[in-house]
């Protein structure tokens, strides 16, 4: 600035920047330090986990090691151990002298070889080079001289004698000369000798090896688990654990296991979940957090897999972790990143409640997934709660879709056939006018092929026709047939039920719709007016409620239905609770229903799209009869039965009346408001629109809406739905902040995830309507509210969450069983569809509903239906087919069980289709691992003496077979507890029968059939009781003899033994 005194020094050149530079430099150092820290620790939290794991796990191992050492010491003190140890010692000392001689000889050979080796190597190289020199000189005249010379040199080298200091057996060293050839020979000889001594040594020690093995086997058998030495090595390894990333790397060829659409799977989960690393925790060790003393820690991911068998089925090296569990296998920086619980990871770890969702990813086609009870429950509920009514799910009760596709296929084939015929005609014509014979022959051949093709199509169409027929019958509806509402239900009850479904029945299968009163009125009126007016079911006289109650309890109704509410509730949850059935059903209808629920008022003709009235039949000149034998009208299939899964119990009309009378007593004193509007025709159109809107026809048969498909979203791949496509409505902010729709904090915090959405949606679908201006109720979300417990809700969430688009996974990872496993899955669909598992135990460990009921406890367990765990091995497939088609095994005497007529509980008639029966038979065979093609084994016929012996055993007092087994005497059969042995030949398999007779309790614990009838003696079964004189000298297998006897049982023989039986009656 002018006028001012300039500063004495130039501010630029004089000022030092050292200060700022120093500060900046220090800052830089500090930041670099931060960076290093972040790299080493901040971004590597797994180091901390590994350090901690090393600490707790080595403590765990130390403790176990000490225990093990003590156990080892205790074992060492036992006499067996000592004896075995002594045996080892004895063997050792026995082998010692020979060993010493062999070892000495071997040592000499080694010394000789060592002495020979340097010379051998040198000479070998020299001769080799000289030989090459000789060989590479051309054998022409021009080179003859040099070739000869080279030859001489080579031969000289070969013949030169090399002296070696040769060790002898006496320990001295002698000079020994070798030519090239001798060297070779000696060297080979030494090698042979060495091999010989090694073999000799092994042979000499065979005794020792065997003894040691015996000892080790004994130790392993007495003290399973890791031996102390292994444990110690492991402990050292864990103590000095190297902190590294542990990862599973799977790279199946073709596609990828991850959902990124390509490349390998990298799961570094084990970097923190160290208990899963089999290098550190061998499979013999299973430990929980508590075992490690960290029971209360929420941050100790060190336990081993809780279900080791799953790891055996899905080895880590093939499946990794995230394939089943979700999460970000790459993530290592933070827990939330590793678990994929951050915004940008579409495949977060499943929460423990939904952990089995992972199974569904690959097991989507299963009807039953072992080790996944929650998932199985979800599948069960998906059907029972009627989800399947509205939501398509590929492979799940898709007979309707299959039927449609079969029809489609038929029409395609029809078209193809017509096209073929046209083409064949054209080809023939082309052949007729073709210029050359060769061409003509080609044309004719083409035409012939097409004709044959059409014939093949015909066979296909025939098969499809049969399939269609079966499918037509297999299509079942979740809810009752509402065409019969007018005949079936009380008028006043209908609107109440629609409006207050869950008040009337808290765990109803039918979900609660959210309806305005006018909607309820319109829907009720429509259903009422739309229903058939008649012909009414036959008028019934009143029955005996007391007898009805007894029958209701005994026949097995409770396997599916429940009765009583709250704590009084007993029975299964497969079908409706019947506590208030008396308030809704009309008596006459109920009697017919109980008698045979498949009986219909009028059949429905899907081709003509109408219910066929008696008048229609009359017009066609046919009697008004429709059943399995009269399942067509005017040449096409008709719906001749109610599409319900409820079977017929083959009751008499009187029994049906009694049960119905009992059920009619099941009611409260509730008064229903009269519903006079039910006949108001003005409500019809509005009601119909509403019924269509809410998709009632998805679960019910409703006249005029038979063809309405499923109205809901297909859920087959719901678990892969991008979050962006999900409408949280006005709950998005709440979801992000973790506030549940009811205002409480959500269990897992923010729930703006697919899982959170599904949980809220299935629990209370209506919440997503909240705060929305919906002047017209019909603009609300359709989905009704199902009645679910918390566990059931999670089961359904698990099922839907796991239903992902698995097309990106390698196809061979998807569980698509073939052979037996496929039969098992197919059979389970049917077994669960008809609730076979309500009465029968089918899989080992599974419990039927009846088993849990109070009236089948204790000794009453004998009244249970038979377990079917060995059914495939027990009975012959042909017999099973007949039985499933007609469980009474009789066309006339049907009010009974075909096999065990003494049982009160009854195998009902399910009216299964041929296809279902085939599937079930294959299912039982596959469950018992029986080969698919059953060829009855030919038993050697009994000789007369054998018959006599068998009869004697059969009737001996020690084997009172006919005391329990039915024998055709009516009075006895009532109290019998086992089937008639006359059925054996047609029903059972000999192999099973033998196994059964010798130890029934092993196959069916708690059976009335006693075990120990036979004892094993010299490789054969011998009757365990006092032997009848005639049988004393029988040399053969007596159990086998008895099996053969049973397979030859005739009524005459039965009568004969009946007379002989000391316990006869």
């Amino acid at each position, binding site marked *: 600035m002018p006028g001012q005194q*300039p500063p004495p020094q130039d501010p*630029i050149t004089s000022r030092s*920047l050292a200060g700022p530079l120093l500060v*900046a430099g220090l800052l*830089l150092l500090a*930041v670099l330090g931060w960076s290093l820290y972040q790299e080493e620790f901040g971004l590597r939290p797994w180091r901390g986990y590994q350090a901690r794991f090393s600490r707790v796990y080595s403590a765990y191992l130390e403790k176990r090691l000490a225990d093990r050492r003590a156990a080892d010491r205790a074992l060492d003190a036992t006499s067996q151990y000592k004896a075995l140890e002594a045996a080892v010692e004895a063997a050792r000392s026995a082998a010692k002298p020979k060993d010493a001689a062999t070892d000495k000889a071997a040592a000499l050979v080694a010394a000789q070889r060592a002495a020979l080796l340097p010379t051998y190597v040198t000479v070998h190289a020299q001769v080799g080079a000289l030989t090459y020199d000789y060989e590479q000189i051309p054998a022409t005249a021009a080179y003859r001289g040099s070739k000869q010379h080279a030859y001489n040199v080579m031969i000289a080298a070969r013949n030169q004698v090399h002296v070696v200091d040769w060790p002898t057996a006496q320990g001295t060293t002698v000079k020994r000369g070798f030519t090239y050839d001798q060297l070779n020979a000696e060297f080979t000889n030494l090698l042979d000798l060495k091999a010989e001594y090694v073999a000799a040594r092994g042979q000499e020690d065979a005794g020792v090896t065997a003894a040691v093995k015996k000892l080790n086997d004994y130790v392993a058998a007495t003290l399973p688990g890791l031996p102390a030495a292994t444990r110690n090595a492991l402990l050292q390894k864990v103590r000095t654990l190297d902190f590294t990333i542990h990862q599973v790397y799977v790279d199946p060829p073709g596609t990828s296991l991850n959902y990124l659409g390509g490349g390998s799977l990298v799961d570094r989960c084990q970097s923190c979940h160290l208990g899963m690393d089999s290098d550190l925790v061998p499979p013999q060790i299973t430990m929980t957090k508590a075992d490690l003393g960290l029971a209360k820690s929420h941050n100790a991911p060190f336990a081993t897999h809780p279900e080791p068998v799953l790891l055996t089925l899905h080895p880590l090296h093939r499946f990794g972790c995230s394939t089943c569990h979700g999460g970000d296998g790459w993530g290592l920086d933070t827990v939330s990143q590793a678990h994929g619980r951050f915004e940008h990871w579409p495949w977060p770890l499943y929460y423990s409640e939904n952990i089995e969702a992972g199974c569904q990813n690959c097991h989507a086609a299963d009807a039953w997934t072992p080790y996944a009870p929650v998932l199985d429950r979800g599948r069960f509920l998906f059907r029972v709660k009627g989800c399947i009514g509205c939501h398509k799910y590929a492979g799940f009760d898709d007979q309707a879709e299959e039927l449609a596709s079969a029809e489609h296929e038929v029409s395609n084939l029809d078209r193809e056939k017509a096209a073929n015929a046209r083409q064949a005609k054209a080809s023939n014509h082309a052949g007729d006018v073709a210029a050359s014979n060769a061409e003509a022959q080609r044309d004719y051949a083409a035409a012939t092929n097409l004709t044959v093709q059409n014939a093949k199509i015909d066979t296909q169409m025939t098969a499809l026709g049969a399939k269609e027929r079966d499918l037509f019958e297999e299509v079942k509806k979740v809810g009752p047939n509402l065409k019969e509402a007018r005949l079936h239900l009380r008028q006043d009850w209908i609107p109440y039920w629609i409006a207050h479904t869950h008040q009337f029945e808290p765990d109803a299968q039918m979900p609660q719709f959210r309806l305005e009163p006018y909607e309820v009125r319109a829907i009720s009126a429509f259903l009422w007016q739309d229903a058939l007016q008649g012909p009414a079911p036959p008028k019934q006289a009143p029955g005996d409620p007391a007898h009805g109650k007894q029958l209701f309890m005994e026949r097995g109704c409770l396997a599916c239905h429940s009765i009583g509410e709250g704590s009084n509730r007993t029975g299964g949850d497969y079908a409706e609770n019947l506590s208030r059935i008396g308030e809704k059903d009309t008596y006459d209808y109920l009697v017919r229903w109980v008698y045979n629920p498949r009986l219909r008022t009028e059949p429905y003709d899907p081709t003509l799209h109408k219910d066929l009235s008696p008048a229609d039949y009359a017009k066609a000149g046919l009697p008004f009869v429709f059943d399995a034998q009269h399942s067509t009208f005017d040449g096409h299939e008709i719906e001749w039965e109610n599409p319900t899964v409820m079977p017929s119990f083959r009751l008499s009309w009187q029994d049906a009346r009694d049960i119905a009378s009992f059920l009619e007593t099941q009611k409260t004193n509730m008064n229903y408001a009269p519903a006079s509007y039910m006949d108001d025709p003005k409500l019809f159109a509005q009601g119909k629109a509403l019924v269509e809107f809410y998709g009632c026809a998805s679960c019910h048969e409703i006249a005029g809406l038979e063809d309405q498909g499923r109205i809901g979203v297909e859920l087959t791949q719901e678990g892969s739905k*991008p979050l*962006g496509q999900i409408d949280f*409505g006005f709950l998005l*902010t709440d979801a992000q902040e973790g506030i549940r729709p009811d205002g409480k904090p959500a269990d897992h915090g923010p729930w703006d995830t697919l899982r959170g959405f599904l949980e809220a949606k299935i629990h209370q679908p209506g919440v997503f309507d909240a705060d929305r201006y919906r002047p017209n109720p019909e603009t609300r979300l359709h989905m009704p509210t199902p009645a679910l417990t918390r566990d059931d809700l999670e089961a359904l969430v698990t099922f839907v969450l796991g239903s992902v688009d698995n097309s990106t996974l390698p196809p061979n990872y998807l569980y698509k069983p073939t052979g037996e496993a496929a039969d098992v899955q197919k059979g389970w669909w049917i077994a669960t569809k008809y609730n076979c598992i309500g009465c029968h135990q089918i899989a080992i460990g599974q419990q039927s509903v009846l088993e849990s009921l109070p009236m089948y406890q204790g000794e009453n367990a004998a009244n249970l239906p038979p377990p079917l765990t060995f059914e495939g091995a027990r009975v012959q497939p042909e017999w099973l087919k007949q039985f499933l088609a007609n469980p009474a095994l009789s066309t006339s005497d049907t009010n009974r069980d075909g096999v065990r007529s003494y049982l009160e509980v009854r195998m009902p008639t399910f009216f299964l289709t041929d296809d279902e029966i085939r599937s079930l038979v294959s299912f039982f065979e596959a469950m018992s691992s029986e080969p698919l093609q059953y060829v009855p084994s030919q038993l050697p016929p009994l000789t007369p003496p054998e018959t006599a012996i068998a009869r004697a055993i059969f009737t001996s007092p020690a084997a009172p077979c006919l005391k329990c087994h039915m024998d055709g005497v009516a009075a006895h059969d009532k109290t019998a507890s086992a089937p008639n042995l006359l059925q054996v030949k047609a029903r059972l398999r000999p192999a099973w029968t033998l196994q059964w007779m010798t130890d029934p309790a092993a196959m069916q614990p708690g059976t009335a059939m006693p075990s120990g009838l036979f004892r094993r003696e010299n490789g054969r079964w011998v009757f365990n009781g006092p032997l009848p004189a005639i049988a004393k000298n029988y040399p053969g297998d007596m159990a086998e003899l008895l099996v053969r006897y049973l397979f030859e049982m005739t009524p005459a023989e039965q009568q004969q033994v009946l007379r002989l039986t000391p316990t006869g009656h």
Partner: protein
Amino acid sequence: MLGDWHQLWLIVSNPDNVPVVALIGLVPFFTWFGLRQARANDRLIEKLETDPELARTHHRKTQPYHPSWAKEVHTWPYLLRIELLAAILVTVILLVWALSVNAPLEEPANAAITMNPAKAPWYFLGLQELLEYFDPWIAGVAIPTFVILGLMAIPFIDVNPLGNGYYTYKQRRFAIWTFLIGFEGIWLVLTMIGTFIRGPGFMWFWPTQTWDPDRIEFLTTRNLDDIFGVNGKWLAHLLPASQQANAVLWARGLFGIIPVGIYFLVAAWFFYKIITATPFTRKIFGRMSLLQVVVMEVLLILMLAVPITFFMRNLLRIKYVWETPWFNL
């Protein structure tokens, strides 16, 4: 719903928005910083203008000066040490930034799942915002091209010899205003709008308003010819029979020329008025060749068109003023 501060925080803390947030502070600061020095220089100029004697002897900088000081200093060490310091500081800033904020990585690319909002990187958000107002070819191609060419044209149309190499405001009022309007008033503001205002569906959300992907917006925009009811009926008589059916198109096309033409004329006159507002600017204007004037006018007119369109669309709800079958303005 306003008052959703969480939403605002989400936007501001979005890693990729950090530079934009930084710009909010940096650009005004540096503008102020530069203008502050410009003011100092302007004072000096004023002083020297009034005192020719001093002007002859003065070193003519606001920087401290003494005749004994060297006019130039050695690069080594005086410049390089500063560069070193700058490099260290930049490194520190960068490392701190990198250590505290992770670069975003979202879901794997998936053409089936549309991002909502699908936004360009922040430095292109201004262009993306323009897409709301112009046809893509204008916003995405024509405007960027004109911006680049316009920037490159600046040295050739700014004939003002003053203010070369020093901060000054008074000597370059027009140039500085134009640049600041273009750079900060248009480009930066559009970028800010694109970053902070545009939410799902590229809808307009005021700050602190929740970004609701399901929000329903009622937006009507009309074309100018609709407002004036151009229907081409009167034109139909003048057209050959073959074009009768296209009368509306013709009418619209012709009609559109009117407002566009008017705008060009008015804006040209407006800018002419500005650049000839003071004697000084008239002097500068006098130095310009015809080509320079035309190019400058065109560029200025086009630049002004951006904010005008912005206001027309957002306040007057007018979509296009000129419709033709090939392009719309």
